[in-house]
């Protein structure tokens, strides 16, 4: 993932390194020029001292010892008067005042010629490489710390950029802390100018979202009433009609089935709307999952008996934090699916209890199951597994979408697995084993 801090630090360190190193390079050049000038001044001083010693009338005299890398000569009308031991016999430079470079003795030399008045000349020379190394070693003393301190500068930049991005982190943390149903505006006192627009836009968005969700909530509750009432009326009319038409009328049977399907679809749609985590405020209490499962299985038992299916409940009391109404809808949906897709005479088992220390609800059937490649898609709204859709099973493909909503609401996890029975599907819901706060 792209990190603003990493990008900023990289660019800033690169810019700092480039500018400071180029400046150091220019500083090095200027310092070397200055050092050269100082060494030239020192050469001039040496030459002037030698001029003072150059009064001897003897000729061709050589002075022993001397300093390494430094030579001199004193000439009188192009005749040698005095020279250092390391100096060549020939003139080391031209008989003309000024600084020059010359090559002798296998080295390059910086030379200076001074006139002592009349025909007398003083010549001094220093090895250029020695001068350069000396000057460079001095100048490098100011360059090397720059290299050594670069990691410290990079660390400082890292810390400072981190401080600079603190308001962004704070804003991000505030948004993360918000509960899923908390659509109140962000409360950020005195935000930096760069975040002002972001906060303002986010608050506007939250406001519009809250209004939209409120409208949807109202629609769900109004639709529940408006849709259920005519369906109930239709059911009554059909019931009355049964006494007026011949018994076993296929038209009446189809009308009854159609009404039942419509009733089921409306209930599913309303459940889907009611269970949306963004829409509802869950009513969490401490509940016993096993007791809840007992109640729901008992309620649905007649429907299973009508198909000669065996329904068994296993497990033990398991307390957890949850919304009882929602969990009942969840289990009802899972049992409805199991009943519909398990052939007559099949077996359905329910487990409600602790498994590995986690409150777990499992509904397993001995039906045809769902191919593993399709298991993720069945949670999509209106999705029905191809092979099952061909069977004579009514349904809108909303049951598992509703289950998914309720699972999300409880911070639980749902998994589709192979049934522990001979064939079929097992839907396993694992709830968090700590108290849920939503």
């Amino acid at each position, binding site marked *: 993932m792209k990190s603003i801090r990493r*990008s900023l630090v*990289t*660019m800033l*360190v*690169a*810019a700092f*390194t*480039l500018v400071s*190193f*180029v400046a*150091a*390079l220019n500083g*090095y*050049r200027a310092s070397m020029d200055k050092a050269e000038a100082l060494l030239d001044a020192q050469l001039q001083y040496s030459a002037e001292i030698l001029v003072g010693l150059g009064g001897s009338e003897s000729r061709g005299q050589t002075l022993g010892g001397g300093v390494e890398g430094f030579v001199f000569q004193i000439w009188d009308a192009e005749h040698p008067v005095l020279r250092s031991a390391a100096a060549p016999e020939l003139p080391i430079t031209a008989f003309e005042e000024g600084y020059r470079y010359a090559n002798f003795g296998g080295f390059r030399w910086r030379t200076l010629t001074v006139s002592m008045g009349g025909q007398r000349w003083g010549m001094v020379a220093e090895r250029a490489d020695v001068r350069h*190394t000396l000057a*460079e*070693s001095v*100048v*490098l003393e100011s*360059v*090397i710390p720059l*290299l050594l301190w*670069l990691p410290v500068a990079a660390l400082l930049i890292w810390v400072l950029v981190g401080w600079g991005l603190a308001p962004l982190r704070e804003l991000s943390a505030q948004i993360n802390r918000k509960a899923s149903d908390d659509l109140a505006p962000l409360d950020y006192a005195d935000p930096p100018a760069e975040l002002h627009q972001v906060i303002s836009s986010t608050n506007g968005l939250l406001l519009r979202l809250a209004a939209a969700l409120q409208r949807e909530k109202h629609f769900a509750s109004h639709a529940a009433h408006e849709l259920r009432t005519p369906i109930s009326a239709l059911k009554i009319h059909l019931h009355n009609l049964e006494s007026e038409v011949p018994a076993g009328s296929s038209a009446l049977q189809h009308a009854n089935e159609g009404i039942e399907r419509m009733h089921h679809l409306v209930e599913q749609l309303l459940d889907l709307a009611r269970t949306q985590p963004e829409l509802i405020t869950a009513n969490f209490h401490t509940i016993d999952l096993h007791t809840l499962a007992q109640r729901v299985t008992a309620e649905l038992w007649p429907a299973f008996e009508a198909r000669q299916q065996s329904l068994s409940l296993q497990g033990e009391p398991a307390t957890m934090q949850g919304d009882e109404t929602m969990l009942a809808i969840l289990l009802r949906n899972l049992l409805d699916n199991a009943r519909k897709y398990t052939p007559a005479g099949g077996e359905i088992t329910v487990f409600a209890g602790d498994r590995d220390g986690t409150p777990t609800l499992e509904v397993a059937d001995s039906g045809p199951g769902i191919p593993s490649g399709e298991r993720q898609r069945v949670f999509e709204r209106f999705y029905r597994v191809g092979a099952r859709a061909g069977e004579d099973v009514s349904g809108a493909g909303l049951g598992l979408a509703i289950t998914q909503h309720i699972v999300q609401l409880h911070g639980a996890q749902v998994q589709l697995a192979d049934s522990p029975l001979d064939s079929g599907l097992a839907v396993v819901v694992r709830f968090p084993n700590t108290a849920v706060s939503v």
Partner: protein
Amino acid sequence: MFLNSVVIVLREVLEAAVLVSALLALARRIHLGQRWLWLALPLAAVGVALYASFLAVITDALDGAGQEVLNASLQAGVYLLLLPILVLACSAEGRRQWLTVLMTLAITCAIVRECAEIHIYVRAFAALGEHAAAVWAGSALGMGIGISAGVLVYGALRAMPQRWALPGCCATLALIGAGMIMQATMLLEQVDWLPDQSPLWDSSALLSEQSFVGELLYAVLGYEATPGPLQVSLYLGCLLLAGIALWWGRMGRVKHAVQD
């Protein structure tokens, strides 16, 4: 010694850094990832080690022209690898494996070419005890400037507006590639594999090759203050070829879009 170290290391590092930056920016633009870079680095390390180990053999080969010819070949190789990279990057999605292989090879060639020289130089001069500090300090400074400039070039390419990002990366790569051919011709002229020609112009008074800007332009454009007619012709020819590669890639994308 310090200044020499800066110039030698900067010249080599800058070129490799700008090439890596342009390819990284291009890879980000076409969502290719960075696997090619992580593949290229160990390959380049092996290449540099082999180059340094067989330096004497390489130098003596081809009547003493071995090192220059090998370096010129590596640079020409980088350019030839950049051409299909430009075509594939500008064409439709897919062929990612080819791009990964080509980018890996291009970076490997470039790093072997640049780092082998640095390795040889630093090893030779740092062995002279009295100059070691100057050589290491100069090399560090040159490397720091080169890598920093590369990072900033990457930042500039990434900061380009979406519309200009891909053309910007491709144009930078085309210029680097043509610059490498320019340098290769200079190397071959040095060993008389190409005729030495009188320069068409001398712009050293305007911009010295040794200045920082001169070094940067050398790395990106192959700047030469006194280029001969052959160098200029080859440079322009390479740019034209890169332009054709870009056009070809773009046509491929348009064709793909029409078929879809």
